[in-house]
């Protein structure tokens, strides 16, 4: 009997690039997350209303509704702690990072990123236990 993989909950991946979504999905699934996808902030907000995920991996620049607009709307609607939001964007200017933190993001990944960086940031955000090194 195969033991069921313990799930770390759902992570919603929000990015207008399908390539990025697929790459992030693969990494997150490897860690034991269930993954949902959304292509912009509006889709993400609808997904959150249907069922609040544990975490959101959030791009900034997207059509229809950008990441920051989503973040502000989500914080207003669901409160400061849930879901845990990790920005994942090419925006790497300090002022941008501060803006996202002020809007209630818990962590911030600057693209380009790799599996090690994503894992590390999930640990920092308290979404993954720190592995035995």
């Amino acid at each position, binding site marked *: 009997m195969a033991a069921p993989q313990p799930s770390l909950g759902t992570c919603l991946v929000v990015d207008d690039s399908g390539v990025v979504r697929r790459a992030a999905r693969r990494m997150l699934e490897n860690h034991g997350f269930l993954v949902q996808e959304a292509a912009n902030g509006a889709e993400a907000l609808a997904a959150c209303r249907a069922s609040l995920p544990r975490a959101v991996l959030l791009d900034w620049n997207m059509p229809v509704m950008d990441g920051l607009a989503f973040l502000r709307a989500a914080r207003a609607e669901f409160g400061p702690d849930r879901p845990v939001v990790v920005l994942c964007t090419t925006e*790497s*200017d*300090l002022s941008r*990072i*501060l803006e996202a*933190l002020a809007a209630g*993001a818990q*962590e*911030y*990944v*600057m693209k380009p*990123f790799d599996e*090690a*960086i994503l894992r*590390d*940031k999930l640990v*920092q955000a308290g979404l993954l236990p*720190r592995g035995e*090194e």
Partner: protein
Amino acid sequence: MIAGNFELVARVVKARSGLVLTPDKLYMLETRLAPLLRREGLPTLDALAARLRDAPSGPLAEAVTEALTTNETSFFRDGAPFEHLRGLLPALAAARPPGAVLRVWSAACSTGQEAYSVAMIAEELGPELAGRKVEILGTDIAQEVLARAREGLFTQFEVQRGLSIQRLVRHFRQEAGRWRVAPELRAMARFLRWNLLDDLRPLGRFDVIFCRNVLIYLDPPTKARVLAAVAERLADDGVLYLGGAETVLGLTDRLVPVSGARGAYALPRVAALAV
């Protein structure tokens, strides 16, 4: 490489640094020494070996050794030692007279992430240190990494390993796509070239020593010798942190594990010895 030349290079490197090169590291020799060969205008590793044979202890031997060091590191590497340090520093501060300086040594510091991680913790502890200053010394055998450590300038990739975003914005300043450690933290840290095989006594005594992920590259007798010399630099109530794959077991009895803290070691208490 001609038979015997690999062994010659390995002997030179081991004599200088203690680093052990096993024959399966030939590929590493080829890739890591290629830039040096170009710089020196040497056509092959055999030509380099011939030069080393004539001058086994000159600047060339030094450059070869440096090129063969492994400098991988990250901020708050493995987490646990730094968590432990957060509890330890206030206790040490309380045990010292007012005005005392707490000395921390990053004994194979590479590009400085370990030293600056300590500086971040000290800065975050602030008033919990009751006015005791923290002074951090980073040492390494390799000049290039030390120069980088002194600069305190890290790439976007490096600052995304081991650092929370909150720590990044608190302790770093952005400079043209890279990130420089804040001046207050840089002021706590000093970097000095020092070979762990050399006499360590001029460095003085330390309240905390990080000697992480360097012993793994040494053979057991050299490990034992370095550990004993490092232990001698530790304050009576100080703590030594080793890397995740390192231990004192079978190497020295001058250090005992700190209970409940993986990778942390202390001097056996005088009282325990007196039983």
